[in-house]
């Protein structure tokens, strides 16, 4: 396994081989959180079928931890119901990556916020239909 100082092998593996990169063109929900000044922006797009996340993709401007947490959160919610996805916390994301350095915990929070934002966007759109 490649090394990089303070990160777990899991983080490095997701940095090198991120899952679900991209954007769903006709997405049912779009969530974009963060800002360039603090260093990270995450954009998550979801495709929902019968209240289940059929597909999810991410794009991220950010550090290794931001890339790894975005990748991991997409894995954790893919195929799950909306209710299940909403129960995924930043701690779950960090744990699934075998932990994050303390100053990188905000990246896992951003990942949680991004998926929640995408779900909220989906709900707003469906309620308005």
């Amino acid at each position, binding site marked *: 396994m490649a090394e990089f100082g303070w990160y777990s092998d899991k983080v490095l593996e997701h940095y090198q081989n991120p899952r679900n990169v991209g954007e769903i063109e006709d997405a049912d929900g779009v969530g974009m959180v963060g800002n360039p000044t603090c260093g990270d922006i995450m954009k998550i797009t979801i495709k929902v079928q019968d209240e289940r996340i059929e597909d999810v993709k991410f794009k991220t401007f950010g550090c290794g931890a*931001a890339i790894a947490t975005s990748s991991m959160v997409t894995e954790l919610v893919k195929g799950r119901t909306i209710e299940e996805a909403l129960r995924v916390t930043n701690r779950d994301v960090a744990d699934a990556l075998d932990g994050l350095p303390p100053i990188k915990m905000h990246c896992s929070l951003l990942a949680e916020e991004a998926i929640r934002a995408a779900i909220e966007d989906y709900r707003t759109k469906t309620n308005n239909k």
Partner: protein
Amino acid sequence: MKRIYMDHNATTPLREQVLEAMSPYLREAFGNASSLHFFGMQARRAVETAREQVAAALGAQPREIVFTGCGTESDNQAIKGIAFRGKGDHIITSQVEHKAVLETCQYLEKQGFRVTYLPVDEYGMVNPDDVAGAITDQTILVSVMFANNEVGTIQPIAEIGQICQERKVYFHTDAVQAVGKLPIDVNELGIDLLSLSAHKFYGPKGVGALYVRQGVKIDPLLHGGHQERGRRAATENVAGIVGLGKALELRLDELEPEAERLTALRDRLYGGIVERIDHVHLNGHPTKRLPGTLDVDFEYIEGEGIIMGLDMAGVAVSSGSACTSAELSPSHVLLAMGVEPALAQGSIRFSLGRGNTDADADYVLETLPPIVERLRAMSMLSP
């Protein structure tokens, strides 16, 4: 894996000859330089030889050199040392200083001092006219770095020194990145206090020095002993001081050819990057810049990702991005230069040194483009 070290502004490897020079003082010549017996005198002679070596490198007198524990201590000692002499309450510095200067000044503000943080131009350069314009009858010190650690821009030190001499204000320069890389003569440049650190020029960590012009009185940071003419109470780090002196002496011998070589290598590396990767920007002055320093912004992506990719390929560099700092804000240097925050996040600093070769630059030019491409494909900011 082959490892290429391109982070010499962070620290440098200890030179073999320096380690050899230090070795006796970690073994049999272990004396306290203040002791009167044989062991003490052995250590004392070694410290004084190093003092002569440092003085020679700066065009100074040996008695004007104070050994310290690091560059940060030298900066703290210079600034607080002048401030606490109580001749006035105004200090002038720049927005692009190292934190060792900036945070010392911020601390002094809390103690009631007033500090002017001078702006810089797009290249990170202070305008000497701004220095002249900021001096008042309450100004006790101007502190402007010799060369910037992130972007490498060399400040107009001679001009600032002349202004300070004319206006009778002390001039301190944090020369931690410049010593051992650029020719320096404290008298020609009108410098009153100068900070340096051994580990930036192939010496050991944990030792630095402060040049204090004869006649300039400083309040010591450390009390409790007569060492360093009462300017730094502490048992001398003899081996470290020997290493500092030796390392600097060796650097002086190779200063010009090495500066020429690294400037060429740096420019070749940048030329190759521009040729292979779009949307890149050079940070720092195009020519008035440290020989080995190359700071580049890669649009649409963030620096730590690039560092990780390069590190996995065996190349060690650094970044001014927020993600590599504890504060989560991008480099204050780049922001002061007017670089957009998002762009500043994508800055990578290559700082070249003695060990780097053309082959190293070629290897970086081979490994970097796919890393940047991969990260850009992942970023929603990419066009």
